[in-house]
């Protein structure tokens, strides 16, 4: 099992003192190299869920297991290290660092784990993304679609076991959406990475075998096949 959630509860306290529940997930799991689309309405807690899984946000209660490690028991620095070594992240906005070239942005993806930075792997990943000729371009010199492909290469640079993608195609034009999506899915298959991909678009979700739906504020996760 790549990812397993048990009784995850997360709520935020609103300024007026009311408690606003965001997540209430009894049980959820993603198998080894499985690919799941996560849909739900805006403000439904999808991003929050990804942050809880990656250890950026701590849940109020419950357990998160990744590759059998209960990361909810780890101290913060331990979760950071775990994230550095096992989790890949692709964000809605591309979130590349402006001062870094495409290659350096990818290298940054492996800078915080114990392993040595593997320049060849970084180059290969960019090559696979069709960016072999864009290694030393800065984000401002890349098209939107290219930027997102650099971000995908970066998310895989640390050879993660789980890739979390938060609406990776939302900022890309429709013609490019499919290309990007295909790249992500193919790469995950190639490297045996489990994928949890958040999307608004039904036409994207439909391409996945399994779709998880996070329902409005009720915060119950259902799995449909």
């Amino acid at each position, binding site marked *: 099992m790549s990812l397993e959630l048990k009784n995850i509860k997360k709520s935020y306290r609103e300024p007026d003192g009311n408690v606003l529940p965001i997540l209430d997930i009894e049980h959820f799991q993603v198998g080894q190299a499985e690919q799941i689309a996560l849909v739900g309405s805006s403000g439904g807690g999808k991003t929050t869920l990804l942050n809880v899984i990656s250890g950026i946000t701590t849940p109020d209660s419950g357990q998160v297991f990744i590759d059998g490690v209960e990361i909810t028991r780890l101290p913060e620095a331990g979760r*950071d290290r775990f*994230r*550095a070594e096992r989790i890949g992240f692709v*964000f809605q906005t591309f979130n590349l*660092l402006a001062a*870094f070239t495409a290659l350096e942005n990818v290298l940054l993806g492996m800078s915080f784990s114990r392993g040595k930075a593997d320049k060849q792997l970084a180059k290969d990943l960019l090559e696979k993304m069709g960016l072999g000729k864009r290694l030393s371009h800065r984000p401002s010199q890349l098209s939107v679609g290219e930027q997102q492909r650099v971000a995908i290469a970066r998310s895989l640079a640390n050879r993660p076991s789980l890739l979390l993608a938060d609406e990776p195609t939302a900022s890309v034009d429709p013609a490019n959406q499919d290309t990007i999506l295909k790249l992500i899915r193919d790469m995950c298959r190639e490297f045996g990475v489990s994928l949890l991909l958040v999307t608004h678009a039904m036409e994207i979700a439909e391409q996945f075998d399994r779709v998880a739906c996070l329902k409005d504020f009720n915060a119950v996760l259902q799995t449909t096949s």
Partner: protein
Amino acid sequence: MSLISIAFKSIRQRALASTLTAFSVALGTSLMIAVLIANTIVTRAFDLQEFGYDLVIGPKGSELELVLNTVYRMAPPIENLPWRYYEEVKADKNIAVAIPVALGDSSEIGGFPILGTVVEYFFNEYAHGKKFQIEGEWPSHKWDAVIGSHVARVNGWKVGDPFHMVHAGQADHVHKEEFTIVGILKPTGTPNDRTVFVNLNGFFAIDGHEKPIDEAIAREAEFFGETPEQVRQFHARELAQYQKEVEEYGHAHTLPMLQKEVTSILVKMKFDPKNPTLSQSRAIGFSARLKEGFKAQAVNPIRPMQRLMDKLVGNIRILLMYLTGLIILVSGVGIFVSIYNSMADRKKEIAIMRALGADRMTVFSIILAESVALCVIGGLAGIVMGHGLIMLAGPVITARSGLLIDPFIFDPQELIIIPAMIILASFVGFIPGLTAYRTDVAENLSS
């Protein structure tokens, strides 16, 4: 990528601000270096602990002026001493060595001070355990001269070259007499390096250097507290000879002692190895006796220089150190402002790095590394600039003040600068670092 290279990336990203802040640190540091080195130069130059003589005897007046004149050849002589007095000093049973020194003129080329003296000057240690060495010969003839190494280098003079000298304080009055260089002294690191030494006999023989007879009698009478008649009595035989020569040839062939004058006398007391402090107390005794009588003073040159250093130079140095310290502090604040202002734009970048697995300490360290890099680069550039400044300004300062400056001079205190920079940088980078440390990842990722 290492933290350092990540830090350097964001330094480069803000190249202008980074360059300016590092430059301000460099300016502060170079000033600090200049102050440190200036202090080393002055301290070394004015430290007479190792000076080769126990006393400097000169006319009564400022002790400091006497030392600046005789030892440093920086100030013009105040008054002169009669030759008769020199003979008396030389005869004193407590005195081992007495060297007459005549100053005031300067070389026509380069304006180096001319010092008329006897050849014994060169055979005495100029500093404890240090003797003059020469290329060429010691002066033996009336018009022989020996020059210091700095004079030789600046004027390009060689053994055999002739030169003229300019009368004290009158730039247009060039003496017609010509001296010839017979030797060049090896560098000593003392004012001797920039001195032109001429044979005292030649110095006296220069037209205009002899005091008119009547004036000389009046001066000697005043000096010894005698009547002019007593002075004439004392010099009776010499004066008769002088009179005879003038009547026979129209001018005197031998210069009477009466007309000779020296600026000062360098004195070494007799030294008794069984009682090493004896020569010191002899010097003190001699100096005390002079205080009462005559018109002369005997000065231990260490004392006025030390007073000058303690009272003036020392305080100026402390003031300058504070000032340059403040400048560096201000440039540190500049770095702080620059980094701190950039933090608002960088919260997102920091959140991204955190999402990629950087922990709080790592992002803190990246900011700190940035501050350290700016301070250390600025500091190193400042050290280079400071030494460059010394190299450029050295010859000018030497020409103006007569202080010799080694262009490669280095003060061990400089070694503190880099660690001090790192400490400063740590303070400067701490608060922005803390901002990075506290950055909320989830919040800044979605912004």
